[in-house]
């Protein structure tokens, strides 16, 4: 059956879900990408904890074991929590072991440079290298777990293979001892700086509690740290919040002229805004007339008929309209159109003047409600045909 209905068929649940997904696709993909990037960043971030390489911490990443072993072997270990303290404690016959160097301020690094005694820098920053071990540069990370000494440093030879885990490698200057080479760059560099010996180690693992018993880790750490009479273990506290000495804000870095430029730009924009904002004369508001289409009620009723598939009412209206127009053409009294008693008379008269037989005419003018949409459309065409033929007869 051809319905001829203009309205599209109801969409299925799957189609609805698909349409909703397509409209939200962009947002969903953007969110997914954001989450993936966040996870990747979190995974790649080195998991440095507060207690790592802390000589007082018994956690796996801490270094209490090393400190205790050094003490038991007769080398006193003093823990310093600031560069100032470390510089006061250091003597010409001590080794200053610096861990968590990223917490040192530039001023602290200067103090260390001025302090006497040897230095053992574990995972130093580039600033520290520049100040304390001139000529040594970072040369990128190495992921080779273990390494063989391959140098003449006594501690390295005694320790043999050492397990590093992830480690930084360095470019060593001429005259420096390069040990545990990985990818062409050493992971341990020892060099004389003035009267002191500076040892740079690219990994914290050989000093950590959990790795101390692997390979020659303990031997290396003890030999380097315990090379002199005492050890000053510097693990700087985090600078207190608000202490930004030595750091410059963006405002201080911007030249004065540029600041004035932006101030003047602001003034210019404000002036331009004032220019555009000032109207020549007011905005005039006026009441608009209502716009109601006169045929709206008829159109609304047509849509209601359609929505409720009111074929019976629609057919009634069409039939009585045609009867009203036929009756005067047939020469019958006007009242006959709505009078059921006059039905036979009208049907006979119409059938006489048209090519249709009485049964068809009766069904068209007085029949039951059409049982389908197609039947309604056919009825309207038949009524048109009847009216046309009577008019032309």
């Amino acid at each position: 059956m051809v319905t001829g209905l203009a309205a599209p068929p109801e969409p299925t649940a799957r189609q609805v879900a698909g349409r909703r997904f397509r409209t939200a696709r962009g947002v969903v993909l953007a969110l997914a990408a954001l989450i993936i990037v966040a996870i990747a960043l979190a995974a790649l971030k080195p998991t440095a904890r507060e207690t790592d390489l802390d000589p007082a911490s018994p956690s796996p990443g801490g270094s209490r074991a090393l400190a205790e072993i050094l003490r038991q072997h007769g080398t006193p270990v003093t823990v310093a929590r600031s560069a100032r303290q470390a510089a006061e404690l250091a003597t010409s016959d001590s080794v200053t072991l610096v861990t968590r160097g990223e917490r040192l301020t530039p001023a602290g690094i200067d103090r260390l440079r001025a302090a006497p005694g040897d230095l053992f820098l574990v995972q130093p920053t580039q600033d520290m290298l520049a100040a304390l071990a001139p000529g040594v540069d970072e040369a990128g990370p190495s992921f080779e777990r273990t390494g063989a000494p391959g140098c003449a440093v006594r501690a390295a030879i005694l320790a043999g293979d050492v397990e590093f885990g992830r480690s930084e490698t360095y470019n060593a200057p001429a005259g420096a001892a390069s040990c545990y080479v990985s990818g062409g760059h050493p992971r341990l560099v020892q060099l004389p700086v003035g009267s002191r010996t500076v040892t740079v180690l690219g990994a914290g693992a050989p000093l950590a509690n959990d790795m101390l018993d692997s390979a020659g880790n303990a031997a290396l750490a003890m030999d380097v740290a315990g090379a002199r009479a005492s050890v000053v273990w510097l693990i700087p506290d985090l600078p207190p919040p608000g202490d930004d000495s030595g750091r410059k804000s963006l405002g201080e870095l911007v030249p004065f002229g540029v600041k004035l430029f932006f101030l003047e730009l602001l003034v210019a924009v404000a002036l331009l805004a004032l220019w555009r904002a000032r109207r020549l004369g007011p905005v005039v508001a006026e009441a608009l007339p209502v716009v109601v289409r006169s045929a709206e009620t008829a159109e609304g009723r047509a849509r209601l008929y359609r929505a409720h598939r009111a074929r019976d009412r629609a057919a009634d209206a069409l039939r009585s309209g045609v009867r009203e127009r036929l009756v005067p053409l047939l020469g019958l009294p006007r009242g006959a159109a709505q009078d059921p008693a006059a039905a036979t008379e009208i049907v006979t008269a119409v059938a006489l003047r048209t090519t249709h037989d009485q049964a068809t005419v009766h069904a068209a003018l007085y029949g039951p409600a059409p049982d389908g949409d197609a039947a309604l459309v056919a009825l309207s065409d038949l009524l048109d045909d009847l009216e046309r033929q009577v008019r032309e007869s």
Partner: protein
Amino acid sequence: MALTGRLGLLALLGCALPILLPSWWTLLAVWAVLAAGVAADLALAGNVRALVFHRSGDTSVRLGEPARVALTVENPGRRRVRALLRDVWPPSAGATPRTARIDVPAGERRRVDVALAPTRRGDRHAVTVAVRSAGPLGLAARQLSREAPWRVRVLPAFPSRRHLPAKLSKLRELTGNHVAMVRGQGTEFDSLREYVDGDDVRSIDWRATARRADVVVRTWRPERDRRLYLVLDTGRTSAGRVGDVPRLDCSMDAALLLGALASRAGDRVDLLAYDRRVRARVEGASRTDLLTAMVQAMAPLEPELVESDAAGMVSALLSRVRQRSLVVLLTELNEAAFEEGLLPLLPQLTARHIVMIASVADPRVAEMAASRGDLAAVYDAAAAERARAERGRLVAELRSYGVEVVDAPPDDLAPALADAYLALKAAGRL
């Protein structure tokens, strides 16, 4: 006061200086220069406060025709005024140009012509005149808005006036004032004249013939000095648009044609516009100013979005009109509104007056009734048939009360109403 774009541009150029000479003094110097320029401009700009505005031009215009309003700017100050002027009108006044440049030397006056092309009927008031007089440097301007009141009344378009000559010649046939002197129709005795060949022998006045040697005939003419009362319904149903014209405007057009015709026919025409109260009234206007008075009264009328109060309208009519008149009610044939409102009151009205109801039929309904093809079209046709049947029933019921009903599409309403009036007049029913 108003700033100009030139000032902003200058300030932008000034941005470069502090980079070249980074000092507070540079910036302060730039600002000082700008401020000095603004101050100089404000001091030297023509004085807008002293300007005097005069208006002249059209005060009324038919809808659809252009109007001209002149604004004369007089400068009694001592300095020349070079300024940008905007004559502010409501948007529906269609004022052009939007702004004009004026250059008025001291002690002289200049005229600015504003062309109005109104888009709607009603009164259009000039809102204000804004003048911006820039200084010699063009950095700042003095600006002021001043009242210069003027009103342009936009009158109904009256497009059906083209039907008037045809209807008047029909009227002349009725009255016997035609070039070919035939016996006029009507019942009122007009005059006696000599018999000429072709005169109806039934109109020979034997008594007068006996007194004279000639055969004398009586002539008749339609009744004169009858009263017409035109009632415009301005309630909610008059707001409905047929095509793009509100029903009220179609009704006005028909009322104007009927008024013009009836006043020429020697009848007295009154007008009442009513919804819940009297919106406009024209009573006792002389034949010559009737049309002007009607048009002026109709111009500001707008459809009110309230249900019309039929009882109030009927009582207003009955209290006002003592003499038997033709009451022409221009309204919408809405079954629901009529059954509750006017229908029960019609006997009161028809007992004393002849009542005629004129209504605009919507061609869209006829178009819908003829639509065929798919299901939606057939339902449209059914709904339109239903609307027509309801209207037909209402018309039949009104006719049973003895009311004349004129129901025609917008273009035909005015001539159809005029014809109905002429038919009544010919039949001597007034």
